[in-house]
């Protein structure tokens, strides 16, 4: 079995997979840009602190200023042309196309998540579906090395399906208890800088309070087949066309 077949088989079993960039130029440039922007922000705020890598962001921020900086960084990211596209090298794009087809939409605006050490605002257990279509894939890109203590945890396909059915049966009334169960049974997936985690939107996932001494900084965005069912998001605002197959291009000539 070829590597690609093996990876695809794994993905269909778990609902997620980890891939490594073959060309990290895009992500390297973004990481540099964000660190520079963070230092500019700190300087403007009158802070004497300077950071040398993004996992030091906690040194210059507190819980009150963190979101201001995060919003500033998101603005920078999304004002830059093709931030979303620069996060996909040919190898990752090849895997996405093999799963979703050649007609692809990509999320217009990339999200940035910053999790300071010991911050109680962790991303609790949740899933992106049905706000997002089940036919989308989430691409999660850490900008720092994330070991098990600061990474995402994911419930695999079987576990997510089991709890989805259970919650439907109880109409979500025991969510508080189920949330803890999912967290306990999920798998923490360490992802290094230079790797990406791709997962299905119906998978329950989240992150625990970051108990490391480093700030976790990550990006995420979604990719979807152009003609697959949409989620609840406003498609015009959320998506942009990323690639079209020659066949689709030919068909479009007639419309």
């Amino acid at each position: 079995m070829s590597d690609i077949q093996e990876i695809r088989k794994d993905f269909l079993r778990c609902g997620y997979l980890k891939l490594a960039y073959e060309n990290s130029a895009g992500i390297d440039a973004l990481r540099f840009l964000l660190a520079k922007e963070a230092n500019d922000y700190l300087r403007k705020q009158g802070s004497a602190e300077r950071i040398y890598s993004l996992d030091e962001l906690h040194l210059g921020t507190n819980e009150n200023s963190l979101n201001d900086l995060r919003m500033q960084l998101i603005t920078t990211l999304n004002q830059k042309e093709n931030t979303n596209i620069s996060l996909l090298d040919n190898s990752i794009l090849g895997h996405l196309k093999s799963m979703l087809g050649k007609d692809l939409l990509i999320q217009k605006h990339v999200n940035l998540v910053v999790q300071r050490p010991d911050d109680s605002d962790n991303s609790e257990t949740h899933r992106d579906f049905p706000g997002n279509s089940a036919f989308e894939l989430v691409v999660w890109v850490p900008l720092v090395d994330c070991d098990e203590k600061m990474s995402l945890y994911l419930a695999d396909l079987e576990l997510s399906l089991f709890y989805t059915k259970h919650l439907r049966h109880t109409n979500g009334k025991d969510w508080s208890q189920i949330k803890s169960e999912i967290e306990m049974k999920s798998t923490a997936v360490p992802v290094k800088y230079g790797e990406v985690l791709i997962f299905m939107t119906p998978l329950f996932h989240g992150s625990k309070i970051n108990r490391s001494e480093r700030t976790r900084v990550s990006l995420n965005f979604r990719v979807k087949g152009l003609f697959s069912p949409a989620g609840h998001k406003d498609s015009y605002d959320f998506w942009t066309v990323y690639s079209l197959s020659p066949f689709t291009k030919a068909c479009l000539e007639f419309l």
Partner: protein
Amino acid sequence: MTKRLLYSMIDSKFPVSSRIQHKIIAEFASEVDCKIGFYGAEDPEFFMGSPYLASKLPDLLCKYSGVIFFSVFQLPTEDILSIIRATLDRKLEVYFACQRIRISNHIDFERDKILLIAATTAVKTRTLTGILSSASPTLNSN
């Protein structure tokens, strides 16, 4: 002076994108001299009883002054009063960005609750009337 932090709850069932909802929420937060600290949302499939918010409420006071919702219409009509009451019981204020409503305490709540019930029930009734009339056209003619 450091601005007070609010916990933002967008409407995950509403088709307006979260980006636009965040803008409207942030604008109202700024008007009331607050800013957003974090973003949450209910699962659109399991939102009755606001289970996400209910599980977060006990931990919010240590960091937040209140919870800011996108709109009164995102809360289930059956639950809206109990959710607001539970939030106020935790010494947290309640804000609704679209309607420019600020409920700081139980006195404000008593003042506003009639309007909240009227508005949310009216929308629900409108939907029911629509369903009833399409299912049974004779209802309209009588």
